[in-house]
């Protein structure tokens, strides 16, 4: 994790420059795009970042840079590998409810971090540059706004280079023009091949096949309705042989946690994925065991520490099946588990002792 910011305790914009570095504009641009790609939702599309690293100064790359920044495939869960098989996508699809907000495992994090640190400074400068344009009072009053922003979208915003807006990859006239071009290219693309999904248009730019991935919150349909749809389609599925329901939300409770969470079992294809997602989701509770709520946020989340807690057998993962019995997670094949699991519970190991034999028994009966 990056070290705490200097001078942040004093607040205010003055300290913003303390971390300024002398990164060049170009590298800032590039790194910025990487930063944007990465830090947005914590979910890092590291693989595609590698594939999309562009050399500054290349027009084509800048264009796709800008597009990427504006299109915000960032943090769109499931924007992992574009090459993913669409069928598999449904099972391990990133229709993420809680998932998108957790950092990756340390190995991937380590992969991504160094650039992040460099970028920080570039952004810093951009931010303070942006603030240079007006005094403290200005940003609070709309009337001063003309200094910064003109109503005509095509005009340059009058910011110095190195400003944050440019860092974001938005040079109005240029980006728009380019966007339109890209749009023209995209749409026939869209019409011709199997419908590329929301975030796949960026992938289309790089020529990768469209992948179907779901975005949290899109389309905007209430859970109640989604679940009803899911259940109806389940009924017709045997007939049509189509893919199963799109989401399978189950509640997850943890002994001692103040509230429930929900996970979509369709996001995971094996127990390991589910388990690590849950570890992250409930890490704030296990750490919270040691600290009061007030100071909770100030502790650095220690991955190894929480893993110890969970793997050190203090808690086990159990689920309630269709018969109402509580079973240990992991005893049955994954598909059978998703079919029968009604809800999950992370319970203390001491409470879970009686479950194992019953699980085995049931399995035997099923087979």
């Amino acid at each position, binding site marked *: *994790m990056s070290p705490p910011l200097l001078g942040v305790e004093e607040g205010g914009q003055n300290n913003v420059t303390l971390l300024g570095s002398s990164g060049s504009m170009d590298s800032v641009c590039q790194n910025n795009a990487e930063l944007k790609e990465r830090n947005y939702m914590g979910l890092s599309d590291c693989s595609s970042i590698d594939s999309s690293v562009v050399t500054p100064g290349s027009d084509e790359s800048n264009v796709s840079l800008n597009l990427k920044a504006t299109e*915000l495939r960032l943090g769109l869960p499931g924007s992992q590998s574009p090459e993913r098989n669409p069928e598999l996508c449904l099972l391990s699809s990133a229709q993420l409810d809680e998932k998108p907000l957790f950092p990756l495992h340390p190995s991937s994090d380590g992969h991504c971090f160094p650039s992040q640190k460099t970028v*920080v400074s570039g952004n*810093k400068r951009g931010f303070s540059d942006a603030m240079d344009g007006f005094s403290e009072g200005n940003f609070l009053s*709309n009337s001063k706004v003309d200094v910064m922003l003109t109503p005509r979208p095509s005009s340059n915003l009058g910011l110095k280079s190195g400003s944050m807006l440019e860092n974001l990859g938005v040079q109005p006239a240029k980006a728009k023009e380019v966007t339109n071009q890209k749009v023209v290219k995209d*749409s026939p693309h869209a019409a011709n091949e199997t419908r590329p999904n929301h975030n796949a248009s960026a992938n289309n730019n790089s020529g990768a096949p469209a992948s179907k991935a779901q*975005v949290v919150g899109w389309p905007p349909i209430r859970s109640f*309705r989604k679940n009803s749809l899911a259940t109806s389609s389940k009924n017709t599925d045997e007939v049509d042989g189509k893919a199963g329901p799109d989401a399978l939300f189950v509640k997850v409770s943890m002994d001692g946690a103040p509230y429930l969470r929900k996970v979509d079992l369709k996001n995971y294809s094996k127990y390991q994925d589910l388990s690590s997602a849950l570890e992250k989701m409930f890490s704030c509770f296990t750490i919270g065991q040691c600290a009061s709520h007030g100071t909770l946020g100030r502790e650095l989340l220690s991955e190894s520490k929480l893993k110890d807690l969970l793997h050190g057998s203090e808690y086990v993962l159990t689920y309630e099946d269709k018969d109402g019995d509580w079973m240990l997670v992991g005893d049955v094949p994954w598909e059978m588990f998703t079919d029968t699991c009604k809800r999950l519970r992370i319970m203390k190991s001491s409470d879970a002792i009686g479950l194992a034999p019953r699980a085995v028994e049931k399995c035997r009966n099923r087979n």
Partner: protein
Amino acid sequence: MQKKTAYSFPDEILEHVFSFIQSGKDRNAASVVCKSWYEIERWCRRKIFVGNCYAVSPTMVIRRFPDIRSIELKGKPHFADFNLVPDGWGGYVLPWISEMAGAYPWLEEIRLKRMVVTDESLELVAKSFTNLQVLVLFSCEGFSTDGLAAIAASCKNLTELDLRDSEVDDLSGHWLNHFPDTYTSLVSLNISCLGSDDVSFSALERLVGRCPNLRRLLLNREVPLDKIANLLSRAPQLIEFGTGTYAAELRSDVYSNLAEAFCNCKDLKCLSGFWDAVPAYLPVIYSVCSRLTSLNLSYAPIQNPDLTKLVSQCPSLQRMWVLDYIEDSGLEVLASSCKDLQELRVFPSDPFGEEPNVSLTEKGLVAVSSGCPKLHSVLYFCRQMSNEALVTIAQNCPNFTRFRLCLLDPKIADYRTLQPLDVGFGAIVEHCKDLRRLSLSGLLTDRVFEYIGMHAKKLEMLSVAFAGESDLALHHVLSGCESLRKLEIMNCPFGDKALLANAAKLETMRSLWMSSCSVSLGACKMLGQKMPRLNIEVMDEKGPPDSRAESDPVDKLYIYRSVAGPRFDMPPFVWTMDEDFASELS
């Protein structure tokens, strides 16, 4: 000579005058005329609406209004409906109930939306408000049938119990048995959200049978079709009815019983439910179709021609909710048959499918806009749109108050010209001067926001996703939309500039939601320090903000005005940026 002032009406007269003022807005206006009006008004206000439960504290409300009989509270932001707000965020009703228990023993109506309601809260409600008549839990969660049992057992004067779209833990179906045999006052019951085993059917039958004033009954999916006839025969006075599952093997006795039961419901105007509906049983409702003003088929998988045939029999329809199985052809029939139509909602039957499974396009909406002069509220999910269609729709329906278009591929361009849909939506805001609610989708540049800022002067709620190119867009909205109360944004390239430049505007709004945008932590902190009457909530499950760079974009940002100050019931992944935030770091 003593000067006689104009304000020398006795208080009782003023109070009597105020009793004619029902609207909260008007009452607020009256209360600021002068101190005595403020005092009189606050003593006689009976109904209060709190659009954001964190904007004010229960103590403050009670202090100002000592005798409230009806309260409406809203908790989570709207995007919580789409799973964008993590569990545990907040919106707990218990603190409100606890304080009101002592202060408002005569409370009659409680309406909650998107709040966390525990069984403990419900038990406290049951115990504290013996006069409770109306309990509406709209999109709430956190309670089980145990809580409902407590309400059933204690609230002798209950007339309305509405659980629409709530998430209820099913523990036992016998909560209905807790309504005592002497209880006969039920007027409205909506249990459509309950799961299986939540409703003991015989208890329901008995309840329906002994409540002669029952006018509204919305059942849950688990009630089988063959039980409906019996139920309806006990309540022929129903005005609104929601079936359970509408599928069963075709049996002539069931069919004729149903047909007769429906026929006997002479006041029936609204129908809903129809889960899993099969065409075979549709004709049983034909006898009521001509009277129907509201029809909700949005859970019914029926397709054309059955669907269209049904629709063509309902000339009095004012509100129609349906799945996209209706297709353009069905909407054309709707347009020609239902001249009183005011509200249309078309939901997707296969929202995540890659290929369209039905032939529903912009043409259907154009047809309805052309054929239905009273249409003013639209929610439409489809897969293609053109600027031309939107312009036509706007010209056809200048009376739109709510227009929500959801293109399933959120950045799709005009399918005919491949241009962004800026011009189309621009026409909507330009022609529809009374537009209060707008949801955008499709490929959109900053231009559409320019139009919105310029024309949408009555706009109160705007929902934006995957749109815009720069902060200019956000700036247009914040500086131009004078009536804006709620703004919710997801996945747009909006950063700090517009937000900081329009910080004062935020105090005139109820709330702003921004997720997956580019607002930096530094900007949030600055807002938190400069704007003490705003709560700046940053949500991030990656870790505490102080461990990351100032320039890092925050994952989710929720800003709302509040006179109650920062709240203290936040989960670990929500931080309030206020002037104390910086000093809390250590």
